[in-house]
Every structure is written in structure tokens, then in C-alpha cells.
């Protein structure tokens, strides 16, 4: 019997090595797998490269991982937030490397990695400093920039419900980067609010089929806020 569920977040992340590239789902706090990030901090892996849309908010989740000094480099589109002071201080002190990627290029580079695409031409960023040094091509009169996939060793996701085969559904706009990151990592770990029996998820509405998911762990939300 195939059962991808593990008991605790720590069990799902025991083998993350130093220097790993880790994708973390979410857009700001929505869809961010906070308990998996806490487990990653506990686990202690260092020199990580993190791929996320942002660079942490406040002092929790991704910001706490940064604050713990575990991140060598972050690949993101929008690090600057009203409450991104942890990242801001590390960046200004030269203690973290930033690869700034336009958000659609970030999404498509992740998608490309998961879909086996070697590289792709995109109009986004053409003629800007974020495309400096990149190969360009004019196709049918329009200018494009060559962009390469981003793949990861681990992807940490948050989903709403999953089953033991790893099928996932999400909740509202907490979906965001989670389904594409699921496809782009060697090992994809999802925290879900609830694990349901096989067959309980309508096959017509499964967003992430279990082939993309290696491990699941249940994390009930704190309190009844949601």
C-alpha cells in the first residue's frame, strides 16, 4: 500500500542537505507552509538557496529562516515589503545574495523545470537591466529574452487537503506558486490541513496529481480562524 504521509514535519525534512535549493510555496503569507519552514529551521540545514515570490514578512515563516542565518541566496520577484525588515537588513549588510526575477519569469522558469523544457524565449524584461547579458531573439517582429528553468532539491508546499497518494487541492488564492513548485523539485513535501481517504477528492478537481508529491504531513491550523 502506498502511503506518502509522514507523522511530523520533521520527518518530512530530515534529509535536506546543506547547500540545497528549496522552493517554498506561497505569496506573502497565503499558501506559505509555515510549519514546514519551522521544521526546516529546527533541522538545521545551512547555505540554502530559497526560491519564493517574496523574502519573508515579519519575524515568522520565511523571515525566521532568513533570520536564523540559513539562507545563502534567495531567488524572488518582490523582496521589498512593509514588513521585510529581516531581509532588508541582511541584504544591506551583504549577508544574502539576491537574484531578482520578474514574477512571470519566476513562475514560467519553475514551470519549465517541471515540464522538461530546456529554456524558453519570453518578452518579459526585454530591454531592461534584469535581462542584461541574456541571449535575445526577434521572432515575428517581437523581441524576446532566453530564460532557463529553475529546479530545486526540495519544494515545500501548503495545500488544503490531500490523500495518501499525494493528490492535492488548495484553498482560494493560497494556491499561487504551490502547484508549479510541486512539479519542479526532486522531492516535494506538502503540508495539508487534512488528509482524506483515497477517493474523497473529486478526480475532476484535483489540482496537483500525486505523481508530483513525495511526502505529506497534516498540519491543523492554529485556532479556528480559518
Amino acid at each position, binding site marked *: 500500500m502506498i502511503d506518502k504521509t509522514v507523522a511530523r514535519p520533521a520527518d518530512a525534512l530530515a534529509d535536506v542537505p546543506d547547500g540545497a535549493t528549496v522552493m517554498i510555496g506561497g*505569496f*506573502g*503569507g*497565503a*499558501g506559505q507552509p509555515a510549519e514546514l519552514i519551522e521544521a526546516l529551521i529546527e533541522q538545521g540545514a545551512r547555505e540554502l538557496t530559497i526560491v519564493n*515570490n517574496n523574502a519573508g514578512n515579519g519575524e515568522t515563516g520565511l523571515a525566521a529562516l532568513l533570520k536564523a542565518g540559513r539562507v545563502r541566496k534567495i531567488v524572488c*520577484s*518582490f*523582496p*521589498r*515589503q512593509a514588513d*521585510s525588515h529581516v*531581509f*532588508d537588513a541582511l*541584504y*544591506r549588510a551583504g549577508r544574502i545574495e*539576491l537574484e*531578482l*526575477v*520578474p*514574477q*512571470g*519569469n*519566476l*513562475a*514560467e522558469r*519553475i*514551470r519549465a523545470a517541471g515540464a522538461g523544457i530546456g529554456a524558453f524565449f*519570453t*518578452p*518579459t*524584461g*526585454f*530591454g*531592461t*537591466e*534584469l535581462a542584461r547579458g541574456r541571449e535575445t531573439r526577434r521572432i515575428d517582429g517581437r*523581441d524576446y529574452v532566453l530564460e532557463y528553468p529553475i529546479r530545486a532539491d526540495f519544494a515545500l508546499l501548503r495545500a488544503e487537503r490531500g490523500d495518501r497518494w499525494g493528490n492535492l487541492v*488548495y*484553498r*482560494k*488564492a*493560497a*494556491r*499561487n*506558486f*504551490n*502547484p*508549479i513548485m510541486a512539479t519542479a523539485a526532486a522531492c516535494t513535501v506538502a503540508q495539508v490541513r487534512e488528509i482524506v481517504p483515497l477517493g474523497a477528492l473529486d478526480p475532476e478537481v484535483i*489540482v496537483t496529481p500525486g505523481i508530483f508529491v513525495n511526502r505529506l504531513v497534516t498540519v491543523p491550523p492554529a485556532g479556528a480562524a*480559518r
Partner: protein
Amino acid sequence: MAHRKLNRDAMAARVARDIPEGAYVNLGIGLPTLVANHLPTGREVFLHSENGILGMGPAPPAGEEDWDLINAGKQPVTLLTGGAYFHHADSFAMMRGGHLDICVLGAFQVAANGDLANWSTGAADAIPAVGGAMDLAVGAKATYVMMEHTTKGGEPKIVERCTYPLTGVACVKRIYTDLAVIDVTPGGLVALEWVPGLSFRELQALTAAPLVSPR
């Protein structure tokens, strides 16, 4: 003659007038977000949010926020009946793939050829952040800019060539400011309208690129 600048709500109302029923629209963070408040009730417009929402509705009443349902500025929003959620690659396919009819973006500068600068002032100590601006700028069928006509210091923001780092090349179609509505055309910047009490000559003096008057 004395003239009065449009305030932020008047600017938003002016942009809203040009958004037709049935349009798929993305409103940028900040000033453009106000446009949603001025779309007349009964006109069905599909608001897109880069983080995976079509049919985005207004902010919820206090106490009913759902932090799994936020907009690009990470503020709580709602979903209209008929709305949909989707992942980021699909969301940016809508943008980059030319499926959005209109995007409205803020700007630091717009050049006479439609170059847009709105993501970085290039300041040495600034934390750079670009988000979805570059995808929107090149992807929507029509990219509108909404901004004050000049900086707080009175410097023109419509210029011959942008001095700030570009967001997109020759991508802006129309500029809405607190003084005027200006189309970016192959024949130059065409001033379509300007506030009462302001002369075309005065508008030109506040604009660092040649304007063409249709009148």
C-alpha cells in the same frame, strides 16, 4: 488662468470611464487600485490579480478577512460570484499571453516612445523589487499608466527618454495624469484632454517631451 489638479479619486474615476463592460483588467498596486472603486455598479468588468484570481471583488467587511484570499498588494479581498482561482503559471500566461485587455500601472517616468519606468529608482541603498510589473507592461493588450504629471518637486514624469531603469520598452499606450490624458502614438504624444483652466502651452511646459494637440 488658474487650474486645479485632479485628486486621486478623480483620476481613478477618469480611468474607470474608459474601461468597458466585459474587459479583463489588471490594476497595479497603489493608485491604480483605486480605479476599482469607480467602476459603475452594473458594469461587469473582470478584475485579475496576479496571485491567481479572476473576478476579484472588493475588500471584505472588517472581521471577515480571509488571509488565503488576498490581492497583489497582499490586502484581503473577496471573490465575485463566477470568479476563479488558478496557479501562478496560468495567471502569468493570462498576462504575458495577451489575454488581458487592459492593465493600469503606476509609473516613475514614461518616455515619448512609450518606455515605462516604474520598478526602481536605481538608488544605491534601495531594496530592488519588480513583482509582476514587467510581465504586465509587455503582456496586456493595452497598458495604461496612471500617475501624477510631475514629481513632488515639480519635475516632469513624461520625458524624452527615461532616466530610471526600464520596466518595459515602448509598451505604454495611454497616460492618465492629474492634469491630462495623453495617448502614446507613432506620431508622438497626443494630448487628448486636460483640466479646465490649464492651457496647452502650460501643459507642454510641465511635460519634458513634445505634445501634439488634437485641437
